[in-house]
């Protein structure tokens, strides 16, 4: 059943992405001031939204573990956070390339960029911490605390473009009262978000299966040592 869901989601996401890429490259005009480079936004924004949502979801799952002590919450939190970190990496890389073309520099130490980089480092540390601690309950507890702290930072990063004047552009999406894009130019961002969300669901499902393998290996090793 899981395999069928994965294959179905992959076909749907690939089809949606192909149709959307066609719209982005052949159906939309260049932006007046930025030219063709503005199209990076169609990957940069969805990737960062999924990164932030993933970190937030990971935090709630980590709290779920702290409350219930059920390791399945921890496994799901680890899977979601790892995939979110991949999307955050895509967001940082695409943003940096856009900045090089538009600002003339690869990086600027403004609040949005710096807080997001700090967030990326915290969750990179989260994954390293998980590798460093062997005892499952201790690992889950430590990781949950880091996840909560990192997610607070992710929220600060999300709001930073409203709270402070940043070099990073102000909100452009209509749901954040940005209104910086024509409706026809904004829609592909949401379609790409849906396609990438489907890919991230697939990745989380695969990661969950791996967590289940790892738990089984751990249990069998204990049995082998007890024999």
């Amino acid at each position: 059943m899981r395999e069928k869901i994965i294959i179905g989601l992959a076909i749907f996401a690939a089809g949606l992405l192909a149709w959307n890429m066609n719209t982005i490259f052949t159906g939309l005009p260049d932006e007046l001031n930025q030219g063709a480079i503005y199209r990076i936004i169609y990957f940069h924004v969805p990737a960062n939204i999924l990164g932030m949502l993933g970190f937030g979801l990971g935090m709630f799952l980590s709290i779920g573990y702290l409350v219930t002590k059920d390791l399945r919450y921890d496994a799901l939190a680890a899977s979601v956070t790892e995939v979110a970190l991949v999307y955050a990496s895509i967001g940082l890389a695409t943003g940096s390339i856009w900045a090089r073309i538009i600002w003339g520099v690869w990086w600027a130490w403004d609040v949005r960029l710096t807080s997001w980089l700090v967030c990326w480092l915290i969750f990179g540390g989260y994954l390293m911490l998980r590798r460093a601690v062997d005892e499952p309950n201790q690992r889950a507890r430590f990781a949950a605390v880091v996840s909560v702290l990192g997610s607070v930072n992710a929220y600060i990063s999300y709001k930073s473009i409203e709270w402070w004047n940043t070099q990073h552009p102000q909100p452009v999406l209509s749901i954040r009262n940005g209104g910086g894009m024509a409706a026809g130019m904004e829609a592909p961002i949401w379609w790409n978000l849906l396609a990438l969300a489907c890919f991230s669901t697939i990745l989380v499902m695969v990661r969950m299966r791996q967590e289940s393998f790892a738990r089984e290996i751990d249990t069998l090793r204990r049995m082998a040592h007890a024999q």
Partner: protein
Amino acid sequence: MLLGLGAAWLIMFIYVILITLRERKLRKELDRVRRMVEHPQK
């Protein structure tokens, strides 16, 4: 622009490769530990 899209896909591609290798390693390890439990003398 193509550099940006290329970077995005490269990161995703590398992650998919890593996750696939990890899956293979875990399956091998699971088989090994299962055999170890089923035949403890070996």
